[in-house]
Structure formats: structure tokens, C-alpha cells
């Protein structure tokens, strides 16, 4: 199956957003003229709003979880240094304004990255290269929240299966069951074949974890809003797991196809590297696809919200909200679709690895 056209649909929406920008240029010029009159009266040291940094800040991982206004949730900092483990609250950094005196070094938050500073407040690169940041960041906490939600949902569903043996599903069970059946009948069985049952736990976990993280990422307030599935490291971990699952379940036909492809022997120097690249490139494509789709959705929504601050007028808000609403509905679909595609392609790769007959 080919799902590449879904990626192309992003282009459509980008051009739509560009269209919005162009139609509102008149509005902007008006705002600028208006600004010129009032700017002098206003606080001159107020720094200009830069949408790029604001957006990238929002989609990146962080050592804080911004709640509202000036209030942020400080997250625990865990550092593995060459001298020992450091454990302290992120509140110690005061949003990166101050250095924190730890047990072994003095640390400072620079661009949300922890660096060792010396007594003069300068970054000590040599010492910094010995510390490993294992902090519970925003994305780690978001993953835990998603995991907890999954536990609550699926343990209660499993309990209702035990309670209502052989009866028709009810309540939450009847919402979840069609999705599980969908994963089994539309994803696992057609792609893997009769051995699908072995891979169901991995496929279901991947599907629901990605889906719930996608959905939580759409929620703008506290328990949600973290860009977990739009983080390339997260998608890297998942596609690496897919790589391991696929290659460890591969049979001799799969390896034979890679190391003894059905081509003339003199082509082997070309074919074997190509096949080996194929082994890596398939999970790599999974990683990029999920990361790019979810990040793009977040960036578009944040761009639309940024319009209000770029034009510095509240009158743009209804337009922004309308488009954000439209995008959010679309992202609801994308959230499901990306989880589906990731699981689907995983099942497809497993299917090719465990395929018995050879063609």
C-alpha cells in the first residue's frame, strides 16, 4: 500500500497558510502604521516578537512545563557526571537566569541545555562533555502521563473483559474493541499472515502509544501540549525498536534476499549494499514520517496563533481561531492516520521478514 500522498497533503496546507499571510498583508501594513504612532509611547525595551524562536521553543523538549502566564512546573533534573549522580529541582535554574551550584559542578541552563560553568560564569566545555542529562523533561513526563492513561484505559478494558465473559462489549470496552479489531484485522493479519498473533502486543502498544501521544499533543493545556511524537528522538527510539523487531524475526529467505539477491553475481557489489541500506532506510523513513507530520501540525497551529502577535491586533484572533480549529480537526485525523501508518508499515516490514515462500 502507498501512503506517500498523505505527506503531500501537507504542501496543500502550507500553501493555504501562505495564502492567509498574503491576504492579511494589508492588515499588517495598517498595523505597522498604527504601531509607528504608538511605539514611542510604549515601553521601548519590549523586545520584538520572533515567531520562529517562539514556535521552535514550543515544539522542543524542555526542563520546564509551562502552565500559564509566568507559572511553570519545574521538573526534576538528573545528571550523571563523571564524579557521581546529581539530583535537584529545575526551579534552581530560575528559567536559565541563574546558575545552580550542584554537589560537583555549577550548572547553567543555556538554550534549555545543561552546561557546566566555571566561577566566572563561562561555559566549561571540557567538564560539560562529561555530564549526561537524564532529567525528567517535559517529554519524558508527557510519555509517563500517556503511559499511565494507557494503563488506566486498558486495564479497565481488560477487567471488563474478565467480568463480562462471552458477552457483548459495553462502555469503554465497546470503544476500544473496534480499534483493537482494526489493528488485528486490517493491519496485522493481512500484512503478517498467520503468524500475526506473536506480533500483536508490539503492534498494539506502538499503535496506541503513538496515537495517545499524538492526541495529547493536540491538547493545549497542562497534561497535553508536549510534542512527544513530533520529537525526532522519540520517533528514533520507536523506529529503532521496529528495526530490532523486524530483523530479529527475519527468516532465512529474508537474509538470502539481502546477501544472495536473485541477480547476476557481478551485480552483488552493488546489490548487497543497496539491500543493506534498505534495511536501515525503511525504519528511517518511519522515523522521519512521524516526526515531520506531527511537528508540521504543531508548527502550523502555532503559526496561526502567532499571527495575533505578529499583527499586534486582537482583530486577527477570530481568523486565527477559525483556522486553528480547522487545523485541530485535521490534526485529529492526522493523529490517527500517523499512528495507523506507523503500525501498518511496521506490520508490513515484519510481514516481508517472516514471509515463507520466495518469489
Amino acid at each position, binding site marked *: 500500500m502507498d501512503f506517500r500522498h498523505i505527506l503531500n497533503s501537507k504542501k496543500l496546507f502550507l500553501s493555504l497558510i501562505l495564502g492567509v499571510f498574503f491576504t492579511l498583508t494589508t492588515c499588517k501594513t495598517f498595523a505597522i502604521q498604527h504601531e509607528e504612532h504608538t511605539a514611542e509611547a510604549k515601553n521601548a525595551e519590549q523586545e520584538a516578537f520572533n515567531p520562529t524562536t517562539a514556535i521552535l521553543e514550543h515544539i522542543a*523538549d524542555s526542563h520546564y512545563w509551562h502552565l500559564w502566564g509566568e507559572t511553570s512546573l519545574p521538573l526534576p533534573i*538528573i545528571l550523571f557526571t563523571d564524579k557521581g549522580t546529581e539530583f535537584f529541582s529545575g526551579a534552581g535554574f530560575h528559567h536559565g537566569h541563574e546558575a545552580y551550584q550542584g554537589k560537583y559542578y555549577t550548572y547553567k541552563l543555556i538554550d534549555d*541545555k*545543561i*552546561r557546566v560553568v566555571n566561577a566566572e560564569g563561562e561555559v566549561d566545555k571540557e567538564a*560539560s*562533555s562529561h*555530564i*549526561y*542529562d*537524564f*532529567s*525528567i*523533561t517535559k*517529554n*519524558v513526563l508527557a*510519555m*509517563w502521563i500517556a*503511559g499511565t492513561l*494507557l*494503563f488506566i484505559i*486498558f*486495564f479497565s*478494558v*481488560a477487567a471488563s*473483559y*474478565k467480568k463480562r*465473559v*462471552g458477552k457483548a462489549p459495553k462502555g469503554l470496552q465497546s470503544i476500544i*474493541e473496534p480499534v*483493537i*479489531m482494526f489493528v*488485528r484485522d486490517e493491519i496485522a493479519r493481512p500484512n503478517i499472515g498467520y503468524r500475526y*498473533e506473536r506480533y*500483536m*502486543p*508490539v503492534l*498494539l*502498544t506502538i499503535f496506541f*502509544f503513538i496515537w495517545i501521544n499524538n492526541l495529547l499533543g493536540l491538547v493545549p493545556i497542562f497534561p497535553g501540549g508536549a510534542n512527544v511524537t513530533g*520529537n525526532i*528522538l*522519540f520517533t*528514533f*527510539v*520507536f523506529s529503532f*525498536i521496529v528495526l530490532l523487531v523486524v530483523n530479529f524475526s527475519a527468516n532465512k529467505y529474508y537474509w538470502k534476499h539481502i546477501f544472495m539477491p536473485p541477480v547476476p553475481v557481478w551485480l552483488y557489489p552493488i546489490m548487497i549494499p543497496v539491500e543493506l541500506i534498505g534495511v536501515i532506510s525503511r525504519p528511517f523513513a518511519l522515523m522521519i514520517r512521524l516526526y515531520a507530520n506531527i511537528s508540521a501540525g504543531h508548527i502550523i497551529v502555532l503559526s496561526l496563533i502567532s499571527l495575533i502577535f505578529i499583527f499586534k491586533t486582537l482583530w486577527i484572533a477570530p481568523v486565527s481561531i477559525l483556522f486553528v480549529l480547522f487545523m485541530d480537526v485535521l490534526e485529529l485525523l492526522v493523529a490517527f492516520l500517523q499512528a495507523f501508518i506507523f503500525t501498518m508499515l511496521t506490520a508490513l516490514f515484519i510481514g516481508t521478514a517472516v514471509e515463507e515462500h520466495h518469489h
Partner: protein
Amino acid sequence: MEQLFEGLLNDHLGFVVWAAVAFIILLILLAKFAWKPIMSAISDRERSIEDALLKAEAAKEEMARLTNENEQLLKEARAERDLILREAKILKDQIVAEAKNVANIEGNKMIENAKLEINSLKAIAMADVKNQVATLSIEIAEKVLRREFDNKNAQDELVADLLKEVKIK
């Protein structure tokens, strides 16, 4: 390039490890406490539904077979009834025909008898008539004879002629 990768492991290895740990814990716990019971419950229920459907199908077939049997029985009974009726009809026709035949024969016999009797009576009557005619003829002849006795030859001829003319059947 060097700057791009500077501190990459220091800053991001932690998240990668956390994500992997989160996934593995999630996979193990969900597989044990959610996916296994849910999948087995679903497949059990599917199997029981399939069983029930198969049983219903079998019951339907059994029902159809019974209905068929009943119909067969009914048909047979009807055929038997028809056979009996047909036989009775044949029997009746036979009896009627026989009776008719007997009656015919009897009638014919009676008619024959009557004819015979009529014929015998007729013969008797004829004999009587013949006797009377003879007597009458004799009387006539006597009278003629007595009168014509004189002309004996002429009278004889006459008698002979008369007798010739009289024809009795």
C-alpha cells in the same frame, strides 16, 4: 558540523533511554495485563459466536430435514388415500357393471321366456284358430255338400278351389 553534534549525547541520550524504558515497561505490562486477556477474550468470544452460528445452522438444517420428512409422510399418506379411493372406485364400477350385466342377462332371459311363452300361446291360439277354421270349413263343406250334393262333381271342384284359396299360416 562539529558544532551541530556538540553535546548531542550529553543532552539527548537521557531522553532516548527514558523513551526506550517507557516503551519496554509499557510493552511488558500491557502485554501481560491487557493485550493477552483482551485478545484471548476476543478470540474466545469470536469462537463461541462462530460455534453458536454453526449450531444454529445445524438446527436449521435439522428443522428443514424434519419438515421435509413430515411433508414426505403427508405426501405418502395422500398418495395412499388416493390409491384407496381409486381402488374403491374401480371396485364400485366393477360391482355396478356386474350388476348391470346380471340384470341385463336376467332381463334378456325374461324377455326370451316371454317370447317363448308368447310364441307357444300363439301356436296354441293358431292351432285353435286352425281347428275352428277347420271345423267351420267342415261345417261349410257339410252345408255346401248337403246343398250341392246333387251336383257332386261341381261341388268337389269348388271345395278344392276353396281349400286352395284358404291359406293358414
